[in-house]
Structures are given as structure tokens and as C-alpha cells.
């Protein structure tokens, strides 16, 4: 059964197993590989995408669940908040191995889109689902606070 949705602003239709997770549909069928596989059970956040602006764990979201919806991946990230977050990530040299960082950036952009002045507790709540084994958490926190300033300015 063909499933249609909007990916990074463009309509796509895939005729694949409707149980196929959004992550693998985007990576293997469409070929966008910025979103990463880390656990396959919504535990680590490396696969985070936005569906209708909300962060979702694409590894555990079946394609059937996003029919007709707007999906944004790291490749389609655009706008003021995204730029502020990504620039802050570079400025603070957040990434080490970098594998989890697409997911971290997606979660951070979702947070700052909703909340332009997050405190540490807000950051903990929004980012707790994103594991970084390099433990870049100190810099993630600093970069989010910094990006928030840019977004507010």
C-alpha cells in the first residue's frame, strides 16, 4: 500500500511495508542519511525527526502513522531557530563523534521553537531522550542557552 507524506517540504509516496519505521524509509528508500540508527526502540534519540513540528523517534514510528503528515529531517531543517542552534553547536564545538548530533539538534530546535527561554530543567526535560556516549551534555546545554539568546534577539 502506497503511503504519501511530505518530507522536507516535498511530497513523497512510498510503496513499502507500512510497518517499516519512518527512519528506515527515509534512510534506505529515500536516501537521506542524516538521521541515525542508535537503538531501534525510542531509547536514544539519534533518529529524531519532526512530524508536524513535534520531535518523534523515527526508529519506532511506523510509516503508516505519518501518512499525510509533514516530516522534517536534519537535511530539511531551516529557519531562524535551526540556524541559531546549528551555529551554536559549531561555536561551542558540541560534536565529538557526532553520530547522535543530528538527533540532538532536532530535539534542541523543537525545544527552542516552543520555548525561547528554557531553563536547565526545561533543557533536561527536552533533551533527556537523546543519549550522547561522548557525553557532550555540558556543551549541548551551553549551546542551547546560547542559541536561545540568538533566537530572542
Amino acid at each position: 500500500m502506497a503511503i504519501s507524506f511530505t518530507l522536507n517540504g516535498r511530497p513523497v509516496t512510498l510503496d513499502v511495508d507500512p510497518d517499516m519505521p519512518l527512519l528506515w524509509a527515509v534512510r534506505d528508500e529515500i536516501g537521506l542519511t542524516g538521521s541515525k540508527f542508535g537503538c531501534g526502540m525510542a531509547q536514544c534519540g539519534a533518529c529524531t525527526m519532526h512530524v508536524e513540528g513535534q520531535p518523534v523517534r523515527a526508529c519506532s514510528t511506523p510509516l503508516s502513522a505519518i501518512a499525510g503528515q509533514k516530516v522534517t529531517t536534519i537535511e530539511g531543517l531551516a529557519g531562524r531557530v535551526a540556524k541559531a542552534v546549528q551555529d551554536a553547536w559549531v561555536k561551542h564545538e558540541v560534536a565529538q563523534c557526532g553520530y547522535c548530533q543530528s538527533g540532538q539538534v532536532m530535539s534542541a530546535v523543537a525545544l527552542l521553537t516552543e520555548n525561547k527561554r528554557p531553563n536547565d530543567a526545561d533543557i533536561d526535560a527536552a533533551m533527556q531522550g537523546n543519549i550522547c556516549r561522548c557525553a557532550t551534555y555540558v556543551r549541548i546545554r551551553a549551546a542551547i542557552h546560547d542559541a536561545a539568546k540568538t533566537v530572542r534577539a
Partner: protein
Amino acid sequence: MTTMTKIDLPQKALLASRRRFLQGAGATSLGLVVGFHWAPRNVMAQAAGNPTMMNAFIRIAPDNTVTVLSKHLEMGQGVYTGLATIVAEELDANWAQIRAEGAPADAKLYNNLAFGPVQGTGGSTAIANSWEQLRKAGATARAMLVAAAAEQWKVPAGEIVVNKGVVSHKSGKKASFGQLAAKAATMTPPAEVTLKDPAKFQYIGKSVARLDSRAKSNGTAQFTIDVKLPGMLTALLQRAPLFGATVKSFDASKAKSVPGVVEVVQVSNGVAVLAKNFWAASKGREALVIEWDETNAEKRGTDQIMAEYRELGKKPGLPARKEGNVDDAFAKAAKVIEATYDFPYLAHAPMEPLDCVVKYDASGAEIWAGDQFQTIDQMNAARVLGLKPEQVKINTLFAGGSFGRRANTVSDYIVEGAEIAKAIEGKESIRGAPVKLVWTREDDIQGGRYRPMYHHALKAGIDAQGNIVAWQHRIVGQSIIAGTPFEPVMVKDGIDHTSVEGAANLPYAIPNMSVELHTTKTGVPVLWWRSVGSTHTAFATEVFLDEIAAETKQDPVALRRKLLTKHPRHLGVLNLVAEKAGWGKPLAKGRMRGVAVHESFNSFVAEVAEVALQPDGSWRVEKVVAAVDCGIPINPAIIRAQVESGIGFGLSATIKPGISLKGGKVEQSNFHDYEVLRIHEMPKIEVHIVPSKEKPTGIGEPGTPPVAPAVANALMVGTKQVFRALPLPEAVKSA
């Protein structure tokens, strides 16, 4: 991999010149060969538009970009930036023109000088072994650019100035590296080069910007899991449920009926499903029916294995260090203190699970991987594929973390990929198809090669004045090195250096000392895990020392100072961290500090942890202050990042349970039951770097060992209890 293709020709020239150099060099002390003769002498004229290999490490393109070929894997530790910094410094390049990429697998050009004839990354050696080599490579290339300009402009080389990538002469003549490179590569490399006076360093010590930050913030950084090749199949391998079990029989019929599944093959470690995409491979793997032969499998649980270790810890082991006579000293001591410490198996759990792409046909093989042990992986893959090692080309990509996991002497994941690629040789429709092997998180957590489980038994003799007069330390656990090609070098008289490092070289001035080892055997495969032996020896020694301090009513920092008078670098970091953490100054109610100091990989780190203890016994690490001495700091920002990372990694194992086995079966499977540190558990971190003129040493690992003992020592202060196992309890009884 077009860049790899482009350098093929100069590469051959380089090899030839390298061979000449080696022949001419004769026996070099310590096996340390420096690479300033590596520039090709007779490189054919470079066609316009082609980049020029100045030597094995430096490629200059006509667009004026300078690419540093990193012989070391970039797995997050910042090595591309660090190595490029050393080159850029001696080359007098402009940092903005610098790029970095993984060097090809070639042990003749790219061996780790600390490993001998092996290309690989580990032991926090990347910067240390490359320091002199890359300074000379940079200085040599610079001299050749200058010589080219001198010849072209007909001016004396001594009058030419190089500054931030611009070569110039007082006459007003000027050229970029890109304009001069092709000619420069034909110049005779100088036999000797003068290295820069460190006082004139522009980049070293100045925290130049990481080269990979942007690509790792916008999803464009390429990892192995992102490789896509025409006709590529994704493979998932069903491994045995118990370590040491083998396939008895299997039924692939249901798996093969899953849409997208292309083939099912048996290999040494299990049964692999090949499919058009990951999802199909995963559904296909679930549909496999496999009967396992568990005759030779490890069937013990970790409780049982640890009980056996505890019995061994009561008996003398093989000597790793012996000074004076501990038995006499214990007999005469006013007081004897004893303690034992237990450590679980730990999985590395890098965020990118193990993966590789293998493309194989009779003419050769090409591998894409976050490859950490190129020479060994080349040999193991060649053996499986019936090729010569040099017929196995390895493209080293970014690794999504490793922490030691991707460097193993049996090349487990590479061999699996190679075996699967070989197994489809006979299947006409997919013969030669590239195979991408992906481990799932469950495969990773349950797949073994853990930090070994250890038991430590310590005993100290104290005289009437409170001095430590005897120290006996018994370590019980598996050897990481036994049975590997490293055994002849790293196991001496039955002592695996990695089992006792951090204990056998204890720096404290104690007259009678005995460090002993019981090497055990289990069916559980083990491996080095960020900071290796120090992951457990630092905890046992530093916590035991604080137990002694408490018993003898001495301040932990004062006691260490007294015992470290002959170790200025230990003392240096200890004093710096004590000052910066405000050691001895009053803290808010419910707050307490603990300290630990430890040397690993020739770097020295002291950490003070500040813990907040709640009345209900729950606790949290609020802050860690670290002082590090890793010689000349190449990039202070990356050093700080690595220490933050090392502390977070160590703290994860301080507060989260490890791997346990029941009836031989691993009880954890994914991040829900093998938990790792998350953002809300990360403390504030301050890193202070000791200024140094010593040669640079490693920083990827040394931040890890001191954190667990520093935290346990803080909790001991707050609770008057002792903490003798990792992980520490989630809640403690308040004092």
C-alpha cells in the same frame, strides 16, 4: 572515494621512496622512524587541477586547500583537528585552508609508531606518536615550497617568508601553496629540517576550530552506516544466545519469504540475512529458526564467576610488583586495613553500532568502516577472503564512537562482513554485491568484548604514627591480551600489563609493596574499554587510600602530597585541582568533596567531585573539577572536551549497572536496561590544564579513571560508609 583514486599514483611513488628510506635507515632505536624523507623524488609533473601529494601526510590542491591525511581514526576525540594542527603549525599554513581525511590502510606509511608495524588507533597514542613525525612532515613540505619559490623567482631560499599560507619575497613576489605545490613536490626534500621554536607557535596551544563541527551539526558527516553503493545489500547476523555456542542447524524458509530478503547464509558466528534494506533484513532475521549447539558455551552467571574470583583473591597471585617484604611489615604493623572491590563487565555501547561495508571479488576487496585497527583488519579480512592483505583496501570513515570497541585483534565485525561477502560468491545474482553489515543495539549489548569483570583485594599495614608501611594489592580477572598477537609484547611472566596498569605503577611512597595478579578464564570475550586497566585499578587504589586516610584521620589531599613527593607531575595536578576546587573550604549543607589522582597513558589527571546528598539518601554529582597534565597542550579546547567526555563516560559506569549474565545469557539488551548517562545526570565540569614543555601525551582516555573514585570518596565523607563496588548505590544511608 574519488579522493582515494586520485592519490593512487603518487602513493606508489611514495611507497617506493619509503622503502628506500627504510633500507637506508638501518636499525633505528625504539623502532621509531621519522618521516621526513617521504616526499616522492620523481613525481611526474602534476596535471593542472590535480592535487599534489607533498608527502604521505600532506596533499595540496590547486584550489589551495591543504588536506592532512590522518593515519588515526576520528571517533570523536578530535584527532583530525589535532594532527592537522601539528602539520599546519610547521607548514605555516592558514588554518582556514586546512582539511583532514582518513589515510588509506598502509602500515608502511601509516603505522602507529607506538604499535610498531601496525596501523591503528588506541591507548591515547595518536598525538604522542605523531608529534615528531608530523612536525617533520610539515616542516619538510614547507621547505620544499620555499625551494620551489626560490627556484621560480631566482632568489635565495633564505630570503623567502612563509606566513599563514602565503609564500613571499621582499621583492614583492608572492604565491599560494596551491600555486607552488606541483613544482614543490619535484624538489629534493631536505635531509634535515629545523623545527619551529615553540615560542613561535601560532596554532599549537591556541585552540584552533575543530574541522568537523559543521558537518557533525547538519547531518552531512559520513559514517559507515551512511555508505550507499550500487547493488548493496544490508546484512544482519543472528549470533548465538550464549558465548561459545555454534549453529547446529537452521531453517531459513520463513526468513526467505519476507519481502526484500535476498539470501540467507551461514558464517562462523551465526546465520546472516541479506536484504534490500535494513527493515527487511531485520524482519528476516526474526523469522530465522536456528538450533544452537551449546556444548562448549559459557553457562555460568556473573554471580558465580565473581564468587570464584573472591576465593582467588584470598590467595597470592603472580607478582606484578614486589618491593620490600609485605608479610614482615604486616606482622609488625600497628594496624592492618583490608578491603575488596568488585567491578562488573561493561559494554562500550558506541552510538553507532558496529558496522562495515565489504565489496569483494576475486581481484580484491574494498572495506568501508570506522576502522580502528587497519593493519590487523586487513590481515584478518584477507585471510577470510583468500587475498593478500594489500589487496584489501580500507576506507576509514568517521566512527560514531568506539571507546575501544572497534579495535580488536580478531576484527570481529570486519571478519563477519568479509565472511558474508565471501559466502555470496557462489550466488550468481548477487555475486560481488557490496554487503553492509549492521549490528543492532541488541547485538552490541549482548555481543561481548566487554571491559572484563574484576575483583580486587587490598591490604595495608599502618605504623603507630599513621604511616602506610605495607601495601598488598591482588587483582583477579580475565586478560584482554592473552591469546592475541599482542601477547608476546604485552604479557610478561604471566602478567598482562593491561590488567595491572595503574596498580603496579602506583606512585605512592610505601616501603613494602606487593601487587599480584590472578588471570582467570571465562567464555566471555573481553576487550579494552576507554582507559583499560585504569577503569578499575584507579578506583581500587584511590578509594582504598581514602579509607586509610579516614582510618588514620588524615586529609586525603595532605596524605597524597606526603606520598607523592617524588612524583612532581602527579603532585602538580593534585595541587592545581585542590586549589581550583577550593579543597578544604566550607561547602553548603549536604555537599561533600572527594579527590582522586591517577596517571594513565603518560598523562596525569586529578579530579575533585562535589556531591549533593539529600536527606532521603539520594545523591547527585553536581560538579567535577579536573586538572590535567598531558604535556604540551596542542589544542586546549579539545583537551577540555576530551576530559569532559572522559568524565561523563566514567560517571556513566559509576552510577549505572554493568553487564550481568545468568546461566551464561547476557541479561541486558538495549538502553532501557543497559542504561547510560543522560543529560540531567551530567555535572558541571571545570578543566584546568597544567602548562608544560614536555612532549604531548594522550587525552582521549585519561579523564575517565579518576571520576568514579572521586565520587565514591565524596560519598564516604558524607555518609561515613565505604563504597567497594561499581556501580555505586543509587541511594545511600545518610550519616
